[in-house]
């Protein structure tokens, strides 16, 4: 929740927090400085005029994160200064979490904005039906929670959660902003963590899923999850013949699919010397297929011919194509994804290398990172490269290399 998005509930909780300030209180501060250096992809069809923004700009941000808690009231807030190469700095404030956890009438309740992660995966989380964050950002800062009123019940080996998310919001800007009712049941049986979830919202209808995590051996953990959703809206490219209807219509069309399945399976293997290997496969029906990406790339490549072919004004075509580039922001560009991550930790020094491979089109995202921590300080650096086969979606991104550094100090 940014300052500009209002939030009377936040003010109410802030009032509660200050009212209880006389009680036992914990507070901490952290400062993070994260410069990013980006290189543009000269062979990409998604160029600056199409995207409406500069490509390959270096950027950076400085975050001041406050954590404060008192008597069940919990606050995580971030003040952020962001800057892009050649532009003026921008300042923003984010309330990552502001909620009250406590008991009332003998029940466990949560009211406020809270991170609600429900899945067992690492690279992708099908059962995160409320949170829905991109899990593969270069430098993870605290996520932004979801506005909820939640009831929970616990016994020795099981737990129930019932959450009413984004009360009164109706159909929001995206699925995570939608008003919805969600439930989770957790059961620990033998050696297995079992999760069953359900969610109902106007946009997606019913979603239902199961997940499990099990420690099969001292060194081996297995996990998997599976989600059904009644509706899925996707923006697809019209066939070449249909594109001739321009102007008056965009080359894209919204297609509502039904009864879609999302799945993830993975394993973690660890050695006593600190070596750890994570392997995951997932299928996300919200991503494009290889042929859909080829259509999009062909459409963008041939955009200069479209005005002659269709008679549409170039501005209208440019705007329509630019709207289509929002697909570059999706967590999963392709439906099928394979992730392999190898990491090694010794004391507080960690190095890791991971590769995301999209088998449908041969795309690759490779990331190398190093991290080291002291008492209060933590530094990390990483390099991410996008590439793969010549017509792969990741190969066509407007930027092909990102180098980041991060320094964080906590008090």
């Amino acid at each position, binding site marked *: 929740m940014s300052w500009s998005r209002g939030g009377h509930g936040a003010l109410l909780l802030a009032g509660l927090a200050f009212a209880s300030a006389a009680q036992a209180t914990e507070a*901490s501060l*952290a400062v993070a400085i994260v410069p990013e250096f980006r290189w543009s992809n000269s062979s990409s069809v998604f160029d600056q005029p199409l995207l409406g923004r500069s490509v390959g700009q270096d950027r950076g941000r400085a975050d001041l994160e406050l*954590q404060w*808690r008192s*008597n*069940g009231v*919990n606050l995580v807030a971030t003040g952020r200064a962001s800057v892009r190469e050649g532009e003026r700095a921008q300042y923003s404030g984010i309330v990552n979490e502001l909620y009250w*956890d*406590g*008991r009332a009438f003998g029940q*466990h309740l*949560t009211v406020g904005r*809270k*991170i*609600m*992660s*429900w899945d*067992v995966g690492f690279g992708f989380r099908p059962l995160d039906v409320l949170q829905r964050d991109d899990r593969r950002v270069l430098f*993870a*800062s*605290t*996520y932004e929670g979801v506005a909820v009123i939640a009831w*929970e019940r*616990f*016994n*020795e*080996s*099981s*737990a129930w*959660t019932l959450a009413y998310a984004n009360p009164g919001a109706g159909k929001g800007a995206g699925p995570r902003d939608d008003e919805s009712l969600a439930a989770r049941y*957790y059961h*620990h049986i033998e*050696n297995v*963590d079992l999760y069953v979830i359900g969610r109902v919202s106007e946009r997606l209808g019913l979603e239902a899923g199961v997940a499990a*995590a*099990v*420690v099969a*051996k*001292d*060194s*081996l*953990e297995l*996990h998997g999850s599976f989600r059904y959703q009644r509706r899925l809206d996707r923006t697809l490219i019209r066939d070449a013949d249909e594109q001739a209807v321009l102007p008056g219509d965009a080359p894209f069309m919204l297609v509502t699919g039904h009864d879609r399945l999302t799945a993830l399976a993975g394993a*973690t293997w*660890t*050695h*006593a010397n*600190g070596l*750890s290997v994570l392997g995951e496969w997932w299928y996300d029906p919200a991503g494009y297929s290889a042929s859909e990406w080829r259509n999009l790339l062909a459409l963008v490549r041939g955009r200069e011919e479209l005005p002659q072919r269709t008679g549409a004004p170039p501005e209208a075509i440019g705007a329509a194509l630019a709207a289509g580039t929002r697909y570059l922001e999706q967590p999963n560009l392709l439906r099928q994804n394979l992730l392999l991550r190898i990491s090694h*930790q010794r*004391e*507080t020094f960690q190095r890791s290398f991971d590769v995301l491979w999209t088998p449908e089109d041969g795309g690759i995202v490779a990331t190398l990172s190093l991290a080291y*921590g*002291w*008492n*209060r*300080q*933590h530094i990390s650096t990483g390099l991410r490269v996008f590439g793969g086969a010549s017509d792969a979606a990741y190969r066509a991104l407007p930027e092909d290399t990102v180098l980041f550094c991060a320094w964080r100090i*906590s*008090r």
Partner: protein
Amino acid sequence: MFSRALRLVPASAVAIACLLMPWLAHGAEVKDLLAVADEYRLANESMLVHTKVELFRHGELQRERLYTVYTRPGRRSLVLFRSPSEKGQKVLMLEDEFWIILPTSQRPIRITPLQKLIGDAATGDIATMTWSDDYDGVVAREETVAGIPCVVLDLAARRKGVTYRRILLTLRKDDSRPVQADLYVASDKLAKQAQFRLERRGGEWVVAAMVLKDLIQTGRETVITYESREPKTLPAEYYNPMFLVRNDVVE
């Protein structure tokens, strides 16, 4: 022939029992010794222990970490990380099963026993406060340490989730106060040597600190100081993995 065999059964049982008696007596003795030794670390079954962990390299302090540990009967522990750089992390140990929660993502992650060992200090070193629940063993020998008569117990893990598969534990012969321990990991490699520092608190001897000398990464030493202990029983739901995401008041 069958009836002759039956007649031999009682005699055989007596003979086997005679053979086992010293071992059984020894096992019972070791169990008693461990129970007494445990009381120097954990006087009550449900406790709140504030712990400081200092990591030294070649005698120089590298890092300091603070933890709050809740224990409960049935080998259940909840570890809350208190240092500024780790604040918000929690580890839950239920017998041989482990979960961790990181503040950035707020979800309980199931971890393997080996993942528990990775990091600054093995979580088991911090959260595990008893030997009698986790180990069986025999009296290996008697010896004198710094002029004090001691007994050395050779302990083998009864469960797969413990941090050390084998411990050679040295206790004072007169009152079973722990003196030192050789700690072996799964590969039967001697990984660490522990020295116990005891002091009188409230008229009772307690283990005030444990000094762990790393024999694999030489020059490293970890000092675990038990700053305070008090009887405390958390409600049962705190030991449910899903409760880790809650930040209710009790802590």
